[in-house]
């Protein structure tokens, strides 16, 4: 009986801790806490403005057009700060610090810095890169028999599996002529994917194009364009590129912010232990 009393007391003491964290996790979900994902590049500092344009033409001829602006800063050690101007007037800020091994997502309204160990972000990026590499390999292998059979492609890794849903594509890659964008020499390539008629109930073939231009010197994407008749068109580009070391303070969480863990690492660890 006394043992039960002791256990009950311990549970009561731990309850506030649980309740406090549950509230924090709930708040994180409501805030849509973001975990920044970056590919670390050292020795190529720059800053630039980013512009994302998206447009979609509806069946009745109406158009939905969206434009998102922001800024990106990268220092010589590979730290990256990204700012995104949101429609509600706030600015979404993320800081990735490979030197400290952490990534932050700043909530400027509540003065909260959501922290995630970079190993988790790296794991996620690694999975995506592995999936994309596998997709490229599969695509190259299928050039002899150019139509994907639509089966799922699965890559299994120690951290789990990434399943890629196959679609019936006929793809073609073509390099684009070198050019200069925003004062940077860039190289590009264009991918055209075609869904043959009848593969997804389509009367005519569906052609999807994707263009990307990157700077070998800065190791950064300068311009990308994507056009899919089902989704519309979108582009991402850098403007006003400045090749200089950004201000150090940009990569530091302001002192009046409260640090909170997103808890993503714990989930990843739990999955690895199973």
């Amino acid at each position, binding site marked *: 009986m*006394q*043992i*039960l009393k*002791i*256990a009950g007391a*311990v*549970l009561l003491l*731990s*309850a506030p*801790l*649980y309740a406090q*964290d*549950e509230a924090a*996790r709930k708040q*994180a*979900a409501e805030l*849509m*806490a*973001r*975990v920044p*994902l*970056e*590919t670390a590049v050292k020795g190529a500092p720059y800053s630039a403005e980013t512009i*994302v344009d*998206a447009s979609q033409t509806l069946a009745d001829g109406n158009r939905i057009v969206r434009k*998102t602006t922001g800024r990106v800063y990268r220092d010589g050690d590979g730290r*990256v700060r990204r700012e995104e101007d949101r429609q509600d007037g706030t600015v979404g800020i993320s800081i990735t610090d490979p030197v400290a091994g952490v990534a932050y*997502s700043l909530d400027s309204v509540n003065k909260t810095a959501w922290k995630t160990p970079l190993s988790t972000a790296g794991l*996620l990026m690694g*999975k*995506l890169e592995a*999936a*994309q590499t596998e*997709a490229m390999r599969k695509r190259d292998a299928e050039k002899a028999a150019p139509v994907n059979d639509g089966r799922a492609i699965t890559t299994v890794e120690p951290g*789990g599996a*990434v*399943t*890629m*849903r196959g*679609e019936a*594509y006929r793809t073609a890659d073509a390099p684009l002529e070198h050019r200069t964008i925003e004062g940077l020499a860039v190289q590009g390539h264009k991918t055209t*994917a075609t869904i043959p008629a009848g593969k997804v109930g389509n009367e005519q073939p569906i052609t*999807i194009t*994707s*263009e*990307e231009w*990157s700077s070998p010197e800065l190791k*950064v*994407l300068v311009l*990308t*364009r*994507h056009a899919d008749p089902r989704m519309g068109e*979108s*582009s*991402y580009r850098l403007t006003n590129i400045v090749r200089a070391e950004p201000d150090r303070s940009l990569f530091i969480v302001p002192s009046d912010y409260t640090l909170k863990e997103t*808890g993503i690492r*714990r*989930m990843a660890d*739990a*999955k690895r232990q199973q």
Partner: protein
Amino acid sequence: MNIRDDEGNGVDRDLSLALRRLDDAALVPEADPAREAALMTAFDAAQRRRTASRGAQYWYMAGLATAAAILVAASTFHGIRPGSPPTSEFVMVPGAVTLPAMESGSLVRMDVPVSMLPSLGVTPPAGLVATVKADLIVGQDGLTRAVRLVK
């Protein structure tokens, strides 16, 4: 019937006599005070061990209960429920292969309408729910690359 009674009485008499003779022959030695003291000491020691053992068991059980309580609280604290992974695996959304390379982006946790899941390449979970919590990986261009459900 009477004959039988007489015979029975005779047997009882013989048995009583035999038992009395045995009783007279049996010698019960006097209790040795030293042995008695040693026996009592051993008995007390055994009692003490039993009490101590019960105390140790008590604290052992209390410790186990405490550890279990802390484990439950800690695992809940970090959103881990033993035996049930908090998330599914990431699935590349249909068409992601045709998207430009992803050099940066973010993982965004949000409530996604169940009706949107097929377009993301995910089979909707069983049950009558309007939305599910999901992690989306969105690239630098704002386009979604992968999705996983948060259980």
